């Protein structure tokens, strides 16, 4: 074992079989107790320069010092726990917004309320060999967004900055 903990704890007659990932910078030199994201088993580990110098040793009944950032279950189609699942994984606070999506954020309006082409699919609008002109005829191509924009304009939600 090294910088993953593949938890084999028997839970309900089956091994837990969850992989807890010990991210390299946090755990490169680290000593303490960490929980399995799935079954909650607490392990003591002591890592020096990325090596599991001691552990993982089960510490039943003790409280973990920290949790892994990410864990997944290869035998369960790689179902996973992402950062910040309470009681299972550690939160990751240094992110650009309160909640990350991990997939395309399909935005129709910029933060000042004007249309921006951040959603899909868009209707085909190219000319010969994929050519485009120098305008976006939003009224024709996306009438529903155009209408929403008119409403925003009327409601004074469209700002300069």
């Amino acid at each position, binding site marked *: 074992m090294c910088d*993953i903990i593949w938890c084999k704890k028997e839970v309900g007659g089956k091994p837990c079989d969850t992989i807890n*990932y010990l991210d390299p*910078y946090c755990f490169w030199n680290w000593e303490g107790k960490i929980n399995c994201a799935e079954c909650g088993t607490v392990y003591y580990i002591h890592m020096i320069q990325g090596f599991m110098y001691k552990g993982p040793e089960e510490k039943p009944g003790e409280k973990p010092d920290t949790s892994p*950032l990410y864990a997944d279950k290869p035998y369960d189609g*790689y179902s996973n726990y992402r950062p910040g699942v309470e009681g299972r994984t550690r939160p*990751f606070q240094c992110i650009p917004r309160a909640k990350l999506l991990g997939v395309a954020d399909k935005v129709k309006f910029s*933060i000042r309320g004007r249309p921006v082409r951040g959603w899909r699919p868009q209707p085909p609008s190219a000319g010969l060999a994929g050519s485009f002109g120098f305008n976006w005829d939003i009224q024709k191509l996306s009438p529903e967004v155009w209408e929403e924009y008119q409403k925003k304009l009327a409601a004074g939600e469209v700002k300069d900055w």
Partner: protein
Amino acid sequence: MPEKREIEINSRADTIGLMDLDVRPYPVTPPPTYEQVKPIYERRKALEFCNWAEDNLRFEKRYEKDEALTGYRILDIGLWRLGHKFCASLYGEAGSEVVSIEPPGGDPLRKLTPFGRDEYLLQNKDSGEKCGMEFVNETVNTHCVTLDVETAEGQEIFRKMAANVDVLLDGMPPGYMDNLGIGYRQLKEINPRMVYVWVGMLGQWGPWKDKQSKFGQWMIEPFASAANSWIHNTGLAQDLLPRGKGGDPTRAGIWLADYVAGAQAFLNSISALYWRDELGGTGQMIEVTGAEALMDILDFDITWYGFNSSIKARTGGWDACLNQYAWNPCKDGYMMIGGQTDKLWYNIGFCLERDDTQFGRLIHEDPLLKEMAARNALHSLIKTYTLTTRWLRDTNRVEAETKLLEYQVAAGPVLYIDEVCEFPHFKYRPWVYVHETDYGPLLIASSPASYQLRAPFRCKWMGRDIGFDNYEIYLKWTGMGQTAVNAMKQKGVI
């Protein structure tokens, strides 16, 4: 080999001189020879082209070739900062005649030395005058003259010099030159063809313009990097290392914004010269700031904020846009691995699973990691780099690089400067070399624009004593003979 000798070291001072280039020659191991490199060219069936490149582009041939910007006169005035100096150095490397003005006491930058240690000042072999290494490195091919532009006579001399320059680089505080009556709006009357470039931190106008303390201390880097979110974006997350111990926003180890601003000052001004000379334009004023030049290359960050209010967060050795594309700790330091497209991504996996079969299994089987774009999600980065580091932990940098290069993966170790200087490719080009300066032989970095067919950039000299070129430049640029110059020296004007 130098002969063995008995030495006694009682203090740091006793070590000075023990490591100089005559004692510990550079490089320690010889650079690779052409015979060693030739098979590498052949393996990819590129021998003929690579031979052509070596014949035509080699660094060693730079002096026999022409210079690109001969005939342009560049006048540079400024203290403390590297932005205008880097720009002046670029003009100097490209062959222009560059004159740098300092006050009679010299630029305070000359006195800066790591941890304030005088023993690391360089000493001029002829005159004995001492100078800091930072100053020497950023005055390439620059003539150094002294002039007190705060005196009426100094201003008169300055006006004469400015009357015939193509570019004037102003690295003084906002409005300083204008207050003295030798700023752009006065000088453009006597030299309408002059391109006047102000290089600073945040601006000579606007709510956040450059400030001075009440005692006159200047703003210098990293104030510029702090003002445009560059520092906010750099460093490890507090989730990976505790705050105060590396999990903080972090400045670059160098005065980064100065170099970026210097390069853009060069590019803008030389484009302005093209417009003037080729397209019938005139002189003009240009203003380049470190904060903004660095903001130009802030990737997409402010655009991103305008899209959905995202505020970029620091990502340490990782990157939010590409996977794999990171460095992580390894057996003997840090190792960088990059490969984002499917081809390279799986190549990394194939390479690592030779030693660690679990890597291939856990990475290649995972449906979340099969699509290129989806691999950039935060949790994908955590999983990928944890497993990669498990391999790196057992692998040193040379082994890792050798193995990954077999799979055509871009990979390279994080090198410290001694390793940089000894890295075979660096020595072969060479990207660092020993240049004989007035301060004795110095190990310096070569200009990246030195590898050209016709007019490569080059370093001829670096660093000068304070006012070294006074007699030559005042004679040639203003017609003042030595007697006149000496008289001005007496008055403290020069």
